[in-house]
């Protein structure tokens, strides 16, 4: 996995060996750069997640990769084919599922599948393939039902069936679980994993749900203002961010300014924030809460508690350990909460410094 926005690859990438390869990819609409000199390599067989705030360039990137939009600069290869000059070949090798349900509601399940089969020019074998998929996704009993009569979960399953009908190598899923209830979303997660493991399809997933990316993806990239600002496995991303946070609430305030020096604990990285909680109870009016970033809370904590107890006996009210999660990493990298709407053009300078 090559990441970020460098134009010079560390290892010369081979478009034939990668499921997806983007080299210096840019897309400009008017004066707005939506995808900015992006470099990305995704290997076959993986589930890749692309996270980013609204307007970060996720959908534009998918449009380019699915051959629907031409890049302004750079090149993208999907299944070894240039998305610009060989878009039909690209489309032969991909499936696509959008955030909305896009089906012909007045037709039955089987009729929708039949049209999809014709669009991909699948020969007589389409019925067998469709029947197998319908059975696998538990829709075979309803195949003559009109789509308008199906639940949203069933419609999503049908979309997956249609996307898999022509045996694509890569499946693009653009926020596929948005708007679904929690149980349907989890059901789809199960199917997404199966698509990857049973059918061996590489999955390119964009999502608004951190948990979804964390649960499903082998590799995650965070995109902001059209640039990829971090790439790695969910675990690696968490590690590279900042480690653990120990939050200690004290019963009474004290001079915390030289806390780390007084404690003599070298691996306290910084005192992140101080919160004088004035609202909870009168008893807590003057209490102090410290958030201390450490590499590993379990290693540091015993020593830390004993030193604090020596310095301020009976002053600790609570101790809480916060393990890093993608949400906090996303916030740290983009400066935005996940799902926040932002203006692409306004915040490039803020975040580029964090690359």
């Amino acid at each position, binding site marked *: 996995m090559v990441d970020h926005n460098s134009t010079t690859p560390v290892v010369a990438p081979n478009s034939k060996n990668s499921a997806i390869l983007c080299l210096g990819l840019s897309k400009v609409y008017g004066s707005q750069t939506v995808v900015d000199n992006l470099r990305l390599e995704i290997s076959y067989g993986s589930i890749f997640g692309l996270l980013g705030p609204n307007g970060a360039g996720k959908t534009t990137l998918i*449009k380019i990769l699915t051959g*629907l939009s031409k890049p302004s600069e750079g090149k993208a290869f999907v299944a070894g084919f240039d998305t610009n000059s060989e878009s039909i070949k690209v489309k*032969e090798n991909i499936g696509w599922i959008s955030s909305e349900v*896009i089906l012909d509601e*007045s037709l039955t399940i089987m009729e929708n599948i039949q049209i*999809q089969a014709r669009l*991909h*020019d699948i020969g007589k074998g389409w019925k067998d393939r469709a029947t197998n998929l319908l059975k696998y996704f538990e829709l075979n009993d309803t195949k003559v039902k009109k789509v308008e009569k199906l639940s949203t979960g069933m419609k999503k399953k049908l979309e997956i069936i249609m996307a898999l009908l022509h045996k694509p190598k890569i499946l693009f899923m653009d926020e596929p679980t948005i708007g679904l209830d929690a149980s349907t979303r989890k059901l789809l997660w199960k199917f997404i994993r199966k698509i990857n493991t049973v059918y061996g399809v590489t999955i390119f997933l964009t999502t608004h749900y951190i948990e979804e990316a964390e649960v499903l993806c082998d590799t995650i990239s965070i995109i902001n203002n059209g640039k990829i600002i971090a790439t790695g496995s969910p675990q690696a991303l968490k590690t590279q961010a900042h480690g653990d946070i120990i939050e200690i609430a004290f019963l009474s305030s004290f001079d915390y300014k030289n806390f780390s020096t007084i404690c003599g604990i070298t691996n306290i990285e910084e005192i992140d924030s101080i919160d004088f909680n004035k609202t909870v109870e009168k008893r807590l009016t003057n209490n102090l809460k410290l958030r201390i970033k450490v590499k590993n809370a379990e290693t540091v904590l015993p020593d830390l508690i004993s030193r604090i107890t020596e310095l301020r006996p009976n002053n600790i009210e609570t101790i809480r350990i916060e393990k890093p999660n993608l949400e906090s990493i996303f916030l740290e990298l983009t400066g935005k909460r996940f799902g926040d709407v932002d203006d692409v053009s306004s915040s490039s300078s803020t975040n580029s410094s964090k690359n």
Partner: protein
Amino acid sequence: MIRAINQFIGLYIREIMNTFRNPAVIILSIVQPLLWIVFFGSSFAYAPVSFLTDFFQTDNYVAFLLSGQLATSMLFVGMFSSLSLIQDKKSGYVRRIMTSPTRNYIIFLSKVFGASTRGMLQVPIVFIGVMILGVQIPDAIGLMMFLFSLLLLSLGLSSIYLLLTMSSSDWQIPTLISNFINLPLMFASTALFPNDNFPPWMQIISNLNPVSYSSTFGREIIFAGNITEVNWIYFYYLLIFAGFMLLVGIIVANKTLNID
């Protein structure tokens, strides 16, 4: 080529199924031209025979109106092609198609042929209606050529509509275009009246207007009952019109139809 045919058939069948699964569309498509024939056709029911034969070259105005009315219907059918495309753009279905290895011109052709087929559905019912009103139906070849000329007109007009709305996703555009061009094209043609008494500027429009060519060609078949006395120029004009508009549509669709 086989793939393109397969893709076209898939999308064309979808258009047809959507038409047949919507009874309101079928009923309105059939009733509207019948109402025209009955009400407008009856407006000269008590006119002196000499006036009718002098002015319309027939003693039955319904026989004169028949081909003109069907040609006029094709003007409105064209609007359906662009409405259908806009609906598919809005619902995301065009994007679904475009992420498959389907070239844009296939989408264009399926819309054009789908709308034309929808337009042709009304023809048998209208023919039954006019038979009741005393119009003689031509022989099989005459009938076939009559239908074929209507199909050509419909293909050309649907192509024009799609060309005008290819890059739009606004529902209002086809209706606005329809209001703007349909009535002038209907009245500046030989659909309702012969153009002998038109002012010169209107005659020029009428002589270029494909609706006139379809109306006149069909009328000659209806009057003669066969194709022996028809002027084939009218037919060739329609053939060139449809072919040219389809060709332009194919080129433009490949270049401009997108969801970017």
